[in-house]
């Protein structure tokens, strides 16, 4: 296995170099996606399946899709500048690398971190999987703020450019549409499964949300417009972006009022509340990530477009 790990490490370094040094933007993106998959493999080898799932789904999959969507909107470009090798940066980063190696040798190898502490409190946490217990209970405030970060990233994107649908290529035939149709139930199933499994095993809202978002991305690729269910009002969409965060902190405030502290739950209800929060968080994450990819066609944008056309 040592050989495999060594090869994996070298491959990761090589791909990272290629992704940053390539002159062709498209090639950089493709290599970046491959890099994400290799890093996910590395997480598996480090016995961190949660991180592996997140890296594969978000770091490689959706980030890659976002990069490609951006690429489709800008002029094809290659970077023809002659690149000077910067000794100062090379020095800074090799210094950092050497320092990290030394630090790695110094830090206790059998360090358990807070694992004992976490295991001791699992019975009161409402969920059995330690990662989920940390994310949704012990350090719920971090996770709530991460949901806010994701929402604000999308608000920022909206602020900068109202129309950011990818530039789709015309498709012949209906292969992709059929594929999307077949995939939809599977995506829903896998998303729900990952969410449900998070209580006891690796999985949870971020991974489930990413899988659902991937399904929505495939839908918008196949039909060349963002997914919209029926005639739902814009308000429903906007609420879906912030619903996860606000439900989370509202329950946190109830905790404050009930005397278990801000962002705390009464232990007896913890399991149910966490599941409720995770469901809403999953939906928020899915719709936020999908909106970042395919844009959100609200009535305002549509109106301004038809104004321009007329």
């Amino acid at each position, binding site marked *: 296995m040592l050989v495999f790990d060594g090869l994996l490490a070298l491959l990761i370094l090589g791909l990272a170099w290629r992704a940053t040094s390539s002159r062709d933007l498209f090639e950089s993106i493709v290599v970046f996606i491959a890099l994400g998959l290799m890093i996910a493999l590395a997480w598996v080898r480090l016995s961190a399946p949660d991180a592996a799932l997140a890296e594969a789904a978000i770091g490689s999959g959706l980030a890659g899709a976002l990069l490609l969507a951006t690429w489709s909107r800008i002029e094809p470009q290659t970077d023809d500048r002659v690149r000077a090798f910067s000794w100062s940066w090379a020095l800074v980063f090799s210094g950092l690398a050497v320092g990290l190696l030394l630090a790695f040798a110094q830090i206790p190898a059998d360090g358990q971190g807070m694992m004992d502490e976490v295991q001791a409190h699992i019975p009161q946490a409402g969920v059995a999987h330690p990662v989920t217990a940390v994310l949704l209970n012990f350090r719920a405030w971090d996770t709530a703020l991460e949901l806010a970060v994701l929402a604000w990233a999308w608000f920022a994107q909206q602020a900068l450019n109202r129309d950011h649908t990818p530039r789709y290529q015309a498709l012949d035939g209906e292969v*992709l549409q059929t594929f999307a149709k*077949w995939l939809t139930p599977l995506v829903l199933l896998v998303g729900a499964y990952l969410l449900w499994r998070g209580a006891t095993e690796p999985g949870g809202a971020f991974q489930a949300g990413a899988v659902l978002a991937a399904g929505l991305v495939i839908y918008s690729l196949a039909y060349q417009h963002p997914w919209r269910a029926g005639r739902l009002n814009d308000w429903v969409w906007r609420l879906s972006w912030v619903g996860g965060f606000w439900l989370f902190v509202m329950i946190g405030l109830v905790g404050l009022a009930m005397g278990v502290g801000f962002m705390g739950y009464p232990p007896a209800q913890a399991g149910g509340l966490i599941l409720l929060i995770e469901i809403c968080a999953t939906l928020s994450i899915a719709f936020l990530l999908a909106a970042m990819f395919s844009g959100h066609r609200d009535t305002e944008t549509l109106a301004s477009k038809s104004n321009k056309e007329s």
Partner: protein
Amino acid sequence: MAEAMGLILNGLSLLLIGLGLAFFMAGTLGVLRFSTPLNRLHAVTKADNLGLGLVVAGLILQAGSWALVFKYLIIWALVLLSAAAVSHLIGQRAYQQTRQTESGETP
């Protein structure tokens, strides 16, 4: 007898996985050596689908439970499905582009 069965199963499974890997190698070589997108696609889809099938068959022989067998089969089916859809898309783009260059249009 049971031991002999185990040995045969292991051997067979190793053989299948080895064969599968050989197909993967061939497919990868094809991607590297062939010149046009369609040729490369031809090489990689054939070789990879068969390669994965052989690897899955080999793993099934080692699987301890029917649930695991079922999961392996699902993985194979899903990869086949997405490979088919994706290679169709790549092929379509490649075909469109070749036609455009042949007819002298600017892409």
